[in-house]
């Protein structure tokens, strides 16, 4: 198990490293650099030279990559070209905000999706199944900006229960976003619920038709005990990876929802940084998103191995 973990961690780090090279090379390949972007029309002659010297942009690309990478490992992504703000603290606030939004959506969405998946699977083709399955597809197909607008209309404007958009500054403490982020979370929940629910539903149907569930019935095990002890532990295993992908997607920033609700999260910051040609921020965000995907999937794989006895033995045998 430990060896497996070390292997996977090593592979994870290798992936992140390769991504970092690609991101750095990609930004390098763009015409211009941080100084030309920052100085705009003044980017010529002495001024440009000075700026590049200040930021160390004259050094060879490999040296700059190593400087950047070693800083990134320590969580230091440098400072913005005007030398005023640390990129780490700017990005850090956005990461915190995205986490908050994701946590809100996940805390409700995942249990609800699993619950709906289980009941639609158990009562396959009954009215509960038809109702919720259709509902889930519907929720998934409506674009986020439409459902967001409708929810704002209903809950913020007509009912006036929650604020329509977020006005709290990005660096405010997490609690200040309450109750502003609720609507955004609800929209995200609606989008993600269908994926997980459908996965769980088909998995429950498959497991309930399996030989071991039939055997449990013929062993005289009561129905609900079969569901909870024999079926669900097996049916929910495949859901772990779908949940992981959803988590990574949420943490990576959800641009549309953030824009609609004016929410200061990762996605919107990324878009802003790209249009401002704020290259160090783009690099930093891309690295964080890549690391999140790798990290979340790593955790999901480890969980699957931990919860699935078959995989556990396999990993032991490979020792």
């Amino acid at each position: 198990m430990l060896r497996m973990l070390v292997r996977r961690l090593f592979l994870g780090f290798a992936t992140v490293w390769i991504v970092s090279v690609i991101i750095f090379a990609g930004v390098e390949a763009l015409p211009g650099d941080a100084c030309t972007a920052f100085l705009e029309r003044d980017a010529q002659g002495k001024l440009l030279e000075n700026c590049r010297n200040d930021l160390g942009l004259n050094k060879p690309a490999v040296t700059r990559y190593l400087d950047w990478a070693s800083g990134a490992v320590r969580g230091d992504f440098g400072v913005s070209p005007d030398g005023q703000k640390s990129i780490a603290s700017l990005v850090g606030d956005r990461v915190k905000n995205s986490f908050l939004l994701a946590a809100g959506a996940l805390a409700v969405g995942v249990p609800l999706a699993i619950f709906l998946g289980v009941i639609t699977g158990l009562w396959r083709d009954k009215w509960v199944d038809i109702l919720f399955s259709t509902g889930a597809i519907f929720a998934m197909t409506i674009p986020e900006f439409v459902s967001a607008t409708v929810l704002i209309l209903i809950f913020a404007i007509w009912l006036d229960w929650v604020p329509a958009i977020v006005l709290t500054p990005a660096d405010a403490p997490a609690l200040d976003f309450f109750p502003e982020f609720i609507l955004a979370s609800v929209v995200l929940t609606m989008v993600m619920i269908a994926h997980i629910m459908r996965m769980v539903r088909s998995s429950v149907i498959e497991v309930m038709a399996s030989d071991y569930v039939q055997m449990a019935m013929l062993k005289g095990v009561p129905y609900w005990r079969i569901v909870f002890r024999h079926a669900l532990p097996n049916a929910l295993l495949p859901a772990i990876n779908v949940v992981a992908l959803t988590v990574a997607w949420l943490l990576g920033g959800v641009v549309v929802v953030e824009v609609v609700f004016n929410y200061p999260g990762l996605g919107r910051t990324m878009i802003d940084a790209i249009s401002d040609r704020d290259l160090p921020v783009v690099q930093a965000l891309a690295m964080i998103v890549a690391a999140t995907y790798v990290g979340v999937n790593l955790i999901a794989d480890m969980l699957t191995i931990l919860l699935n006895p078959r995989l556990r033995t396999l990993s032991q045998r490979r020792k």
Partner: protein
Amino acid sequence: MARPIIDIRDLSIGFTGRTGKTLPVLRNVDLTVRRGESIGIVGESGSGKSTLALASMGFLKQGLRVIGGSVCFNGEDMFARKRSELEAIRGGQLGLIPQNSGQSLTPTMRIGAQMAEALELHCTLGKDAYHARIIDLLGQVRLPDPEAIFIRYPHELSGGQQQRVAIAMALAGEPDALLLDEPTTGLDVTTQAHILELLRDLARDRNMAMIYVSHDLGVIARVCERVMVMYAGEAVLQGPTAEVLKDPAHPYARGLLASIPRLCDTHLPVALDGRPPPPGGGGAGCAFAARCALVVDQCQAERPALMGAGNGSQARCFRHADAHTLAAGGTGADPLHHRSDGQPALSLDDVSISYASHGFLDRLFGGAAKDIPTVDDISITVASGETLGLVGESGSGKSTILKAVAGLLPPAGGQIAVGEGNALPTMVEQRRPQQLRRIQMIFQNPDDSLNPRHTVAEILAQPLRLYDGLSGQALTERSVEILETVRLGAHYMDRLPGQLSGGEKQRVAIARAFAAEPEIVLCDEITSALDVSVQAAMLELLNDFKKMKDTTYVFVSHDLAVVRALSDRVAVLYQGRLCEIGPTEKVYGNQSHPYTSVLLNAVLEPDPDVAPTLMAEDVVELSPPSTGCPFQRRCTRKQGVTCENETPPWRETGGGHAIRCHIPLEDLGGD
């Protein structure tokens, strides 16, 4: 006489077909079982035997419903009971041992927990007594080290061990009656023989009633006192085992018996032509009429009732008195046997194969320890036109060797050559089309080896296009011609595998292999997924091809009787090492390797008077020992440390028969 514990009367079960009509899968079946009785239900797939067994627990598979009749357990109707009452009976007074225990045990629960659940639901013991009781039960089914099994997960056990756990679990409720749904199908002969002995003993000790469902008449002969033969959802013959298996009074039962290959019979088994009618498609008369040799007008017009046929048996046949004139074995065609001194067609020289793969990271981090190869030291030459049988228990490396020959697995060492020493590239993708064409493989399960989205025409076209460059009209004509050689007509060309029966699918797979005009055909357990009557037809077909094309076969099977029927020479494998090789009659003769004797003695014949002799303990070995004889740990005739340390020598008995054993030839039998 005591009241029957299970009393099934006039039971009919069916489902609603696509047209809205009710199609019966079980028709007017009567069955009574008393305590201490064991009854066998025999039939081919689709005959309704499993449906009947499950119905006696009050359980129907999805989509099925009771059309008429009743199922009583201890005098009360099972289908009229409440769910909670059924739950109390199932697993309690009425236990089930399922067909595939590997899939019937919940993969995420430890064995101990699953057993404890059975106890919790069906016995009055206190919670603290569970552990001791479970260990006791696991010991009763002769599982080695019950404490270790207790904390294992199902996948960590071998097939035989899983089956024993399932038996122990059924016994946990102290059942009065036990239903066994093909409990030993898919197990090795040795494991099967041990489990059957165990069941016999348990049934006797506890005075249980048993309903034993199987397609294997050998198993039924060993365990049951009475037999019921089912065909197309009907009981067509029932009576005492000896009567039914030795001189059955129904044409179908006789055909079934004739289609079983036997160790003592050198003829090929005789296939039953045709196939059973689909549910609801039997017409007004006898369901078997279309396939029956004794059919008269009355059989077509009117459905026979079960009638007394003498010696305590009842047959659903108007002509049961004449049925005894039909053969029930021993009349098949003689298999074509070739000399083994012809030109070599395939030679394996010191081949070894290892499954342990060393991944990129393993190599990066210094690599894993050197392991013992799964298959080692295999040197065999197969002559042109010869059939070599490879036998052994599961895990003996039979299929692994075939895969290496086919180029699907890279050998770790040694050389595989075709013809006169033309070494083949190890992997299939490195072989040229002309090399590929020479070796073709037929797989065990046609459901997996035929692409479900390709029509028969497309399946057959692939080798013809690749090797012969055929297209258009010529391709179609050749495909039809090949289909006809496997006794399927041109009207099969547009069908998908899903629209074919098991036997037809395997015929298509055989046709695909022979479309390439191969010199060597590798058969990997090609009949083990089929019914016996279909199996007999496949063996006939292979024999016909041998006559027509002089094909060389390497035939892998765990069924020793099937291998005997077809092979010229047999090689016995244990743990990936050769134990014995030689002409079939010599290997199946008296002078043989201790392991061959164990295998042969465990074979069950469809004859209640022949009992298997069990020698070695059923220990499951995961890997061969690093030195000495591979069979040392199970051998009852182990000669001390010599067997542990030294690789046994090949001892020639003459006629190309060699045994690899430390025991001198004169002590290996031969009387």
